[in-house]
């Protein structure tokens, strides 16, 4: 392998953090939109999302390939085998998971906090502000859930990224390629890097995030 591990790692972080950001923002928007609907419909929609959490990433990869291959509906965009295609695929991979995560926590928290705050005689507006403040750590970890899901998926990156050295090779595709040519030792080193990066990033961000949030009170 001619490409340095550092380059692959940076590309991995870049691609998956953007995919996670898009997934995070859109599930925030979805949750906000659905929160005004009646609870019955929201449960049905969320059920669909919950079911989608388990869809194999290879299936999503194939779907994105079908969209972007030269004869496909979006083939003219020439996105196949670019990092952008991986970002789109990983966004689809991360979306159901981050949506479900947010949804569950939001509803659980909303009801308890509203009841508590209103019973203590707070105005409705202040209750909402308090809710937002209490929700912040959850939003933070929702982002990290989607980030690590995007970082660790292989199917999409392999099919629509192709693992082209120096362009779309991310950690997971590098691991898969090294495994398939029998270079197990190198593959496991890459795997160790992948795991430690995810852990390090998430733990530091969490500690930092909580420090900042603690100061709020």
């Amino acid at each position: 392998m001619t490409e340095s591990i550092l380059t692959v790692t940076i590309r991995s972080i870049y691609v998956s953090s953007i995919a996670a950001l898009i997934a995070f923002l859109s599930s925030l928007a979805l949750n906000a939109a659905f929160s005004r609907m009646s609870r019955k419909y929201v449960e049905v929609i969320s059920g669909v999302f919950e079911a989608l959490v388990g869809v194999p990433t290879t299936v999503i990869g194939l779907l994105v390939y079908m969209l972007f291959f030269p004869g496909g509906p979006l083939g003219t965009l020439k996105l196949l085998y670019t990092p952008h295609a991986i970002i789109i695929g990983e966004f689809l991979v991360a979306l159901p998971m981050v949506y479900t995560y947010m949804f569950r926590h939001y509803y659980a928290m909303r009801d308890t906090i509203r009841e508590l705050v209103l019973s203590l005689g707070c105005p409705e507006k202040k209750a909402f502000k308090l809710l937002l403040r209490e929700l912040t750590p959850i939003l933070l970890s929702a982002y990290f859930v989607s980030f690590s899901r995007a970082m660790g998926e292989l199917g999409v990156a392999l099919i629509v990224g192709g693992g082209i050295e120096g362009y779309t090779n991310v950690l997971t595709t590098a691991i898969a390629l090294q495994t398939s040519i029998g270079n197990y030792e190198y593959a496991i080193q890459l795997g160790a890097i992948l795991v430690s990066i995810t852990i390090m990033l998430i733990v530091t961000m969490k500690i930092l995030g909580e420090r900042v949030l603690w100061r709020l009170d």
Partner: protein
Amino acid sequence: MRIVIISLVVVLAWITGFIIGVYHVELSHSSLTQYSVKVSTTTSLYQLGVLDDLFSDFNNVTGLNAKFDVLAKGSGEALRLLADGSTCIGFVHAPALEQEFITQGKIERLALFAYNEFIIVGPRSDPANVSSAVNAVEAFKRIYMAGELGLARFISRGDMSGTNIREIQLWNLAGLNPEGKSWYLKTGQGMSQVLIIADNLDAYTLTDIGTYMKLENQGKLRNLVTLKSDPTYLINVYSMYLSKTTPCDDPYTWYIAFKLRDYLLSRGQDLISIKYMGLLNPVKGREDMVLQAWLALTKLS
């Protein structure tokens, strides 16, 4: 107020991160402005490292600064990508499958540029006595018999790669169908993984000599030895293809493809014979023999 400041900091951090990221991607692929050709290849050639050598020598000799984006896949997938126009140039070794795509008019063969052979490898103890078989077909018959008796196992790629297709052809020639037998294990993995599995399970398998020698030299195979080689049934021909789909129908791709073809058949041949002796043979001087072998292979079902 604090919330505003914090969110501002977060947003700023994001924007800087984004800019660094974009800059990095552009930097690491500065050839975005330069022309690049997508190439799909079988994993065996990728693993030998021969393509990297050929491409860099090609750029040196011709003075072209072509960038080749290489996707290492099995021959079946590599051909599919060619037929889709997802990649424009392909290096594969599955004659029967190639013929199918050629008759569909989706790909065009530019060159048969190298060949080596498949070998049957198995445990040192050789319970099926493959090493004394007269040819590859009889060797497969012996493995089948030993398998039925519970003495041997066979690991199959099962992924429509060139090696897998050759294996199926051999079973057909032997008039046997191992499908669904308990001793016949289909893995769907790459060649190296199959060799490692076969090594761990004391099983037989069919492999191209390049991948086997590479792993053998790295000391990854403890118990697997070459049991049967057979120049008639086990020749392995590598060909270069150009996709005839619209996305590849631009002058630059064609120019690069035909230049590369000319290079492969002239100077590339010398590079292969010098640097990959024993792993890969150039076709130079034996074009007829290789072509005949290729034609014979397309006719096998």
